[in-house]
C-alpha cells in the first residue's frame, strides 16, 4: 500500500498542477459551423495545450438559451439574437452580449426536373412565388423569362423544405422576406415557419433525398452540402440583376457588399446585399460572447482565441468549404474584441 502511494504520489501532484493550469472553456450552439469550430478548437488546442475548448452542436436556439442561462461560456448561432433575447440576457447578467461573425454560409436552390439538364436561373420573385404556392407550374412566365432557350415542362411544382428548425431555413426565409413583401407579411422569418405549401424533409439530407426522388420538385440546401454531394443547383438573381451561382467567393462578396451597413454589434442580415458578384442568399454565423467575463483566465483565453480565429483561423476555412470573412469585417471585429472586459 505504501509502495503504491509512493509511486502514485508524483503523478497525483502532476495531475493536480496540470488541472490548476488547464483552462476549459465550454460553448454550445449552431450545428452548421460545427465542423469548422471543431477544427479551430483542435488546432488552437495544439498551439496552446493548456487551453481546451469544448463545443456542443445542439442548435442555435439551444446555444442562445444556454449562454443566457450562463451554463456555457459562449454560445453560437446562425441567426442573430433578437431584441427580446438581448434584453433577457442583460436582465440576467447585468451586462450585454457580443456577436462575432466567424464564417459564412449560403443556401442554394436544388431541383429535379425531368428532361432539363441546363442550370436554371431563378429570380427572387420566382422563388418567393414558388414557396408561397402562387407559382404552381414549371413553365410559369416568371421562371420562363429568366431561362431563355430552356423548354420547361407544364408540370406541377412540388416544394420541399426543411422540417427541422434550422439556420439553413432562417437564411432562406430571411432572403424571401427581403425580396417579397407578401412573404414578409404572410409567413415571416424564423428557424421554423408556417410553410404555405410543400413537403418537409429532415435535415439537408432529407431535403436532397426527397428532391432526388420526387420528379418536378424544388428545395433548398446548404451550399456546402450541395458542393460536397456534387448536386446541381440553380443560379439566383442578385440585387444588381446578375444571375450568380452559389460559391465561396460570391458569399464573401455578399459580406463585403454589405460592410457599410454592418452595425457595431454585427447583428445584420446580409441576404440580398448590393454588388454584382454577390450571391444573394448568404449569411454570417456568429459566436455569442458575454461582455463581462468574471474569470480573468477564461477572459484572456477567449480574447486570444478570437484574435487567432480572425487571423490564422480564417486561412483554414476554404479547406472545409466555408466562406472566409472579408478583410473589412475582420478589421471591424478585431476592434470589437476590446469590448470584452
Amino acid at each position: 500500500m505504501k509502495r503504491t502511494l509512493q509511486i502514485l504520489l508524483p503523478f497525483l501532484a502532476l495531475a493536480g498542477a496540470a488541472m490548476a493550469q488547464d483552462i476549459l472553456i465550454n460553448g454550445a450552439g449552431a450545428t452548421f459551423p460545427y465542423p469548422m469550430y471543431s477544427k479551430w478548437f483542435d488546432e488552437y488546442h495544439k498551439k496552446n495545450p493548456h487551453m481546451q475548448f469544448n463545443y456542443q452542436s445542439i442548435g442555435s436556439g439551444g446555444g442562445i438559451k444556454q449562454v443566457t442561462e450562463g451554463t456555457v461560456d459562449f454560445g453560437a448561432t446562425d441567426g442573430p439574437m433578437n431584441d427580446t433575447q438581448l434584453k433577457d440576457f442583460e436582465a440576467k447578467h447585468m451586462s450585454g452580449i457580443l456577436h462575432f461573425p466567424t464564417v459564412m454560409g449560403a443556401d442554394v436552390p436544388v431541383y429535379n426536373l425531368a428532361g432539363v439538364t441546363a442550370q436554371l436561373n431563378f429570380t427572387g420573385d420566382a422563388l418567393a412565388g414558388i414557396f408561397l404556392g402562387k407559382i404552381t407550374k414549371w413553365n410559369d412566365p416568371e421562371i420562363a423569362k429568366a431561362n431563355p432557350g430552356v423548354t420547361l415542362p407544364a408540370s406541377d411544382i412540388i416544394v420541399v423544405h426543411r422540417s427541422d428548425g434550422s439556420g439553413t431555413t432562417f437564411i432562406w426565409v430571411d432572403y424571401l422576406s427581403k425580396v417579397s413583401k407578401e412573404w414578409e407579411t404572410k409567413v415571416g422569418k424564423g428557424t421554423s415557419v408556417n410553410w404555405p405549401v410543400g413537403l418537409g424533409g429532415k435535415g439537408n439530407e432529407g431535403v436532397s433525398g426527397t428532391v432526388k426522388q420526387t420528379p418536378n420538385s424544388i428545395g433548398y440546401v446548404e451550399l456546402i452540402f450541395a458542393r460536397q454531394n456534387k448536386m446541381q443547383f440553380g443560379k439566383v438573381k442578385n440585387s444588381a440583376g446578375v444571375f450568380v451561382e452559389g460559391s465561396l467567393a460570391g458569399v464573401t462578396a455578399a459580406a463585403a457588399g454589405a460592410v457599410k451597413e454592418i452595425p457595431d454589434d454585427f447583428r445584420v442580415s446580409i441576404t440580398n446585399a448590393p454588388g454584382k458578384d454577390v450571391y444573394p442568399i448568404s449569411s454570417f454565423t456568429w459566436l455569442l460572447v458575454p461582455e463581462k467575463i468574471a474569470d480573468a483566465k477564461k477572459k484572456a483565453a477567449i480574447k486570444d482565441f478570437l484574435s487567432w480565429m480572425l487571423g490564422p483561423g480564417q486561412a483554414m476555412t476554404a479547406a472545409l468549404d466555408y466562406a472566409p470573412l472579408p478583410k473589412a469585417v475582420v478589421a471591424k471585429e478585431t476592434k470589437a474584441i476590446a469590448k470584452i472586459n
Partner: protein
Amino acid sequence: MGAGPKPASSFLQRLKGGDEVAYLITCIAASTILALTALIVFELYHNSAASRGKFGFAFLFSSTWDPVNDQYGALPFIYGTVVTSAVALLIGIPLGVGAAIFLAEMAPPKVSEALTFMIELLAAVPSVIFGLLGIFVLVPILKWLEPAIRAVLGWTPLFSGPFYGVSLFAAGVVMSVMIIPFIISISREVILAVPNDQREAALALGATRWESTWDVVLPNAFRGIMGSVFLALARALGETMAVTMVVGNDPKIKASLFAPGYSIAAVIANEFTEATGEMYTSALIELGLVLFALTVVINGGARLLVAAGERNKT
C-alpha cells in the same frame, strides 16, 4: 404495510425468511416506475404553463402551427399520429398474429426457432435505419404500386389526390414493419403457453388441427395477444425518427392517406432544438403532454373494449 401491529418475533422470522425484504425491494421497484411516470407528467404539465395559459383547450382543436407569430395548435399532429398508428396496426395485426400462429402451431420446431431468432433481430434494428429504408426503398416501391392501389381503392377518399411518395400511408407502412416483431414475438410466446391438454382435448373431440387452433388455442391466448397489440400501439404512437423521415412533415389535415402529414413525436424532435422563445418551447412541451394523454386514452379505450368483449362472451 398498515396491516396492524404484529408480534415482533413473527416479523423477525419473516425477515429471516426473506419475505419482508423481497416485498420491500420489489415494492420499491414498482413504485419507481410510478414515480417516474408521475414526474414526467408533472414536468410536462409544469413546463407547458405558458402555452396552456394562452391557448387553453383551443390548443387541441386549432390547426395553425406558426412559430413566427407564436400561434400553436395540435390538431394536425394528433390527426397524423392517430392515422399513422391506425394504418400500422391494420397492416401489423393480421400479419403479426398470422405469423405467430404459424410459428407456434404449424411450423416445425426448428424452423420456428430460426425464424423467431430473426424476428427478434428485426426488433433490435434502430428506427433511423427503418426510416432510411423507408425513404430509399419503400417509397419508390409504393410509387410503383400506386396505380394498382388507385385502381382498387381509388374510389375512396382515402386514396385520392396526388401521391408524392412521402405520406401518412408510407409512414404507416414503415411503422407496421417496426411493430410486427413485437406482435409476433409476444403472441408466439402466449400461444405456446396454452396448455397442451387443451389442444389434445379438442383433437380428441374430433376437431381438425385448425379448428383446435382457432376455437380453442386462440381464445385462450386472446388476452396475451391483445397485450402484444397494446405494446405495438404504444411503440407506434411514440415512434419518431422513422416517421419523420417518410411522413412528409406537413401539418395539414387531409382525408387522403396519400397526402403528407405530421405526427406529434416527429414535430417535437424536429423543432425542439432550435426553438427559441418561451411560448414556442412551451407549446412543444404541451404537445408532449398531449401525446401522453393520447396514449392513455387510446390504450385505456382499447383495454375497455377488450374487457367488454370478454364479458359478452361469457
